């Protein structure tokens, strides 16, 4: 049994640890910088991370505090409830509005028609409001933690920037295009505007997956997608490019499936590729990351055997999507595979409920470019640009577009 004196003793010990933490962090960061092998580097990274985190659950470091972990647990729980009850509640009101207008839920509508309809009864929007409020809590609590402990997390990233086994290329002087600066998913700072964009995105999106596709805390969805990616006909995969890699879960999975290949993940978000590289280094995965644009990768012509991307194109304006496809064609070798994973697209009219969801997500979840993406026929755009679509291909990510292309021109 522990008495009050022992409780005070424990508190005093905590204070002492806090006082020495800065020095210990610096020492641990030096160990990362001095590591001369992949194993040493990964061990040093884990030791450094362990000074702030509460251990790891498989590939995922536990969040820095129990409260933060619990807040994320709540927002996940709310999402799960929301996807069933709240959404159904809004749909029921929307259906009543449609009925009053002499329409049914399958009627193809334009965005403008949907915008007019959803203003007719504010009760339609209870699902939108609660979902967004929950999303704001997700981001605010995560951002609050990483900024409150910014000294540690910046030190950790600075140490990791130099660590192996993979490399990191940052471009602090490059011009960041305006189209990339939006706060997609209403994440404060978006992918480019917060030093901890990668940390925040990674933990915030775990709950996205569980409520929509399934568990992804161990990168299960990314690994499963990579496992289903097709190979070039000659089976040769020496170089792989992941365009718009975000926090590098897909890139890391590619390197794990093709350990002998040179794998690159590109993203315009400096904080995103820093986090991606740090995480891969901690896992001992030798993927390379660079802060670059998908429409201007800088790689030589025909450099890659496999070029891919993971749910990235709906975050681009349509004209940029076309440029990224052109660039993908340039860097894919003849006979190489191009397989961008993303939503199905095509058409400016959809059944009422579907268009309501699409409009709402675009407008208020700040998916700024998603309407352009959904209106364009992404598959046709690829086919127009020197790639040949493989018939009867299977989806790399079930439920998403099947876009298995081979460079033939």
């Amino acid at each position, binding site marked *: *049994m522990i008495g009050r004196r022992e409780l005070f003793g424990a508190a005093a010990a905590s204070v002492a640890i806090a006082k020495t933490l800065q020095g210990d962090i610096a020492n641990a960061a030096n160990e990362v910088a001095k590591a001369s092998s992949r194993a040493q580097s990964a061990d040093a990274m884990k030791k450094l991370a362990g000074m702030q985190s509460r251990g790891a659950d498989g590939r995922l470091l536990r969040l820095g505090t129990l409260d933060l972990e619990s807040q994320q647990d709540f927002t996940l729980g709310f999402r799960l409830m929301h996807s069933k009850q709240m959404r159904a509640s809004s749909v029921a009101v929307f259906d009543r509005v449609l009925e009053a207008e002499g329409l049914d839920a399958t009627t193809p509508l334009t965005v403008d028609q949907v915008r007019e309809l959803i203003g007719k009864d504010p009760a339609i929007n209870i699902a939108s409001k609660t979902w967004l*409020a929950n999303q704001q809590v997700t981001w605010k609590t995560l951002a609050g933690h990483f900024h409150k402990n910014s000294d540690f997390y910046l030190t950790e990233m600075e140490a990791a920037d130099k660590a192996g086994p993979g490399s990191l290329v940052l471009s602090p002087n490059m011009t960041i295009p305006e189209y990339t600066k939006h706060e997609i998913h209403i994440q404060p700072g978006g992918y480019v505007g917060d030093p901890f964009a990668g940390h925040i995105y990674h933990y915030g999106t775990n709950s996205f997956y569980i409520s929509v596709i399934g568990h992804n805390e161990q990168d299960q969805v990314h690994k499963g997608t990579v496992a289903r990616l097709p190979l070039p006909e000659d089976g040769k995969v020496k170089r792989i490019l992941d365009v718009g890699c975000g926090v590098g879960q897909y890139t890391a999975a590619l390197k794990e499936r093709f350990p002998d290949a040179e794998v690159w993940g590109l993203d315009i978000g*400096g904080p995103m590729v820093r986090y991606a590289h740090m995480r891969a280094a901690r896992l001992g995965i030798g993927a390379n990351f660079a802060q670059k644009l998908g429409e201007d990768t800088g790689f030589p012509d025909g450099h890659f055997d496999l070029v891919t991307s993971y749910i990235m194109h709906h975050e681009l304006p349509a004209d940029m999507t076309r440029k990224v496809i052109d660039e993908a064609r340039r860097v894919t070798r003849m006979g190489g595979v191009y397989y961008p994973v993303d939503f199905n697209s095509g058409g400016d009219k959809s059944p009422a409920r579907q268009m309501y969801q699409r409009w709402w997500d675009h407008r208020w979840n700040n998916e700024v470019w998603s309407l352009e993406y959904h209106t364009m026929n992404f598959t046709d755009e690829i086919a127009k640009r020197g790639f040949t679509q493989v018939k009867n291909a299977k989806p790399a990510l079930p439920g998403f577009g099947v876009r298995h292309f081979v460079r033939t021109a």
Partner: protein
Amino acid sequence: MAAQDSKRPTYATDAIPSDVKNGLFLGNAALDNVVSCVIAMGAELWSTKRRLLVMQAVMAKKGITSEMIEQYVPTEAEKADWESDRDRFVDLTLGPLADGGFRPVGSNFPKR
């Protein structure tokens, strides 16, 4: 956000903010704000309850009784820490009451 840690390289730049806080979803900004508060309050309440569950589990293993908790007197440092945490709690849970949405839900993006 980008400028917050500007003494060290952060590789971040200024983002274009979303205008989600200007959204008016339920026909009345006050009602929208209350909904935001309820969600945030839920997060804090569950966080607290989950911590209690963890504490109960840990204490049970260490022999700590409920009576020992009831009798505990916080130190001055603890009082200060807890007040700071209370202020953060109030900001998170009730701060949205001060938001002022005005843009109808069907409105397009504002010109930038």
